């Protein structure tokens, strides 16, 4: 079966699903990108996803993934716990991020962290640093970083964020117009929606549609059809 699959045209524009261990061809001179390894001169897919060829790099866009934090990411965190001077934030990664009181936007007294942020509350923050064992530090110092007091949170898999934003933010704008809502998309796949109840409901429905069908072509048309209903 591998002989058949290697002969498939990867640059024909059609979506090609690959599975772990699938040989995707030799591709002389091409770089092995995310989800691809070169084994004995041949490129091999390492995860389930769609094959993408960005010029000189062959990579796999995964069909499912978990958030891996990177420094500088804008994320939405949920407070899971705290000590006297640190909050622990669930940012959807394998490990909780820490938010020290020195990186909070308020003047916090030692031992009074709960007065500013309590368990279960949501914050818009940025990942300040990530070490090699994936431990991360979050910060709330920066423009627009704040506690989220209204609206609702929706989750999407992190790998479909580029599709939710769209080219030049076109899809994001469509979603904002659809529900007349404010939207913030965290790199960790959490989406903050704030607006009227009906509008938020419409954006939620659109996000569900994107989540379910992001791997299939024609997403823009489907969302436009939903917006026109």
């Amino acid at each position, binding site marked *: *079966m591998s002989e058949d699959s290697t002969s498939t045209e990867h640059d024909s524009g059609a979506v090609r699903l690959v599975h772990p*261990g*699938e040989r995707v061809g030799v591709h002389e001179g091409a770089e092995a990108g995310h989800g691809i390894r070169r084994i004995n001169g041949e490129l091999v897919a390492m995860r389930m996803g769609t094959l993408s060829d960005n010029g000189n790099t062959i990579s796999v866009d995964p069909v*499912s993934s978990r958030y891996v934090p990177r420094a500088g990411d804008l994320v939405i965190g949920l407070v899971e716990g705290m000590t006297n001077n640190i909050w622990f934030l669930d940012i959807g990664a394998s490990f909780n991020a820490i938010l020290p009181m020195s990186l909070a936007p308020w003047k916090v007294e030692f031992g009074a962290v709960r007065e500013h942020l309590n368990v279960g509350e949501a914050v818009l923050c940025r990942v300040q640093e990530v070490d090699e064992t*994936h431990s991360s530090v979050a910060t709330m110092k920066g423009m627009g970083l704040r506690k989220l007091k209204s609206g609702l949170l929706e989750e999407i898999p992190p790998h479909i964020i580029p599709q939710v934003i769209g080219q030049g933010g076109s899809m994001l704008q469509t979603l904002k117009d659809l529900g007349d809502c404010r939207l913030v998309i965290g790199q960790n796949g959490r989406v903050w929606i704030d607006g009227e109840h009906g509008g938020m409901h419409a954006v939620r429905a659109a996000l569900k549609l994107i989540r379910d069908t992001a791997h299939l072509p024609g997403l823009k048309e489907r969302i436009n059809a939903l917006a026109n209903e």
Partner: protein
Amino acid sequence: MGYEDYQCMDENGIREDGRKADEMRPVEIECGVVPVADGSAYIRWGKNEAIAAVYGPMEAHPRKIQRQDRAILDVRYNMAPFSTSDRIRPGFNRRSREISKVTRDALESVVNLELYPRSKIRVEIEIICAEAGTRCCGITAASVALADAGIPMSDMVVSVAAGKCNGIVLMDLNKPEDNYGEADLPMGILPMTDELVFLQMDGDLSMDEFQLAWDYNVKAAHDVHVIMVEALQKRYGGDV
């Protein structure tokens, strides 16, 4: 019926369930059966039925089990109390511990654990109905569930078993053949390279019999791999 009396094959070379010596039981796989899991798979292999679910990577607890340079696989194989005619006492036992361990060892050889330091990937295998060959069934389902969860792997482990009954080497033993048979050879194979990642042998096989059982297993692994890939493609809307 004693062990001597059991006849696994008739004079035309057809087994009790209508298969030939080198034929497997029918296999069906479906992905995404556990919506809350990161990846999951249901497998029906003859009368065997199993569900595998994958969660993670997540923080490994307690901290003493964390590895600073890689993730750990936490595999739990369990048979439901109702999966056999004799009720299985719930909880771990010697057999389920052994199968959990060999499954973990087989899967560790393909999963890129070094990408997730200090983490844990939880693999749960639940046997719903058992009719010989549940460890193969579980490993195969777990491989599909890991792929479904988007865990990076160098290949998918396919596990199949051949054995011997009445002195005849048979592919994929069913319950009576396994009970009255002389040997069982479950193997875990990486279909893209035909590498072996798991082998157990229960009973005795001569060198020729072992070679024949091996050849049966390698061929069957490729057949099952096609079904695994079809299940994954079906889940994500690809052309099958």
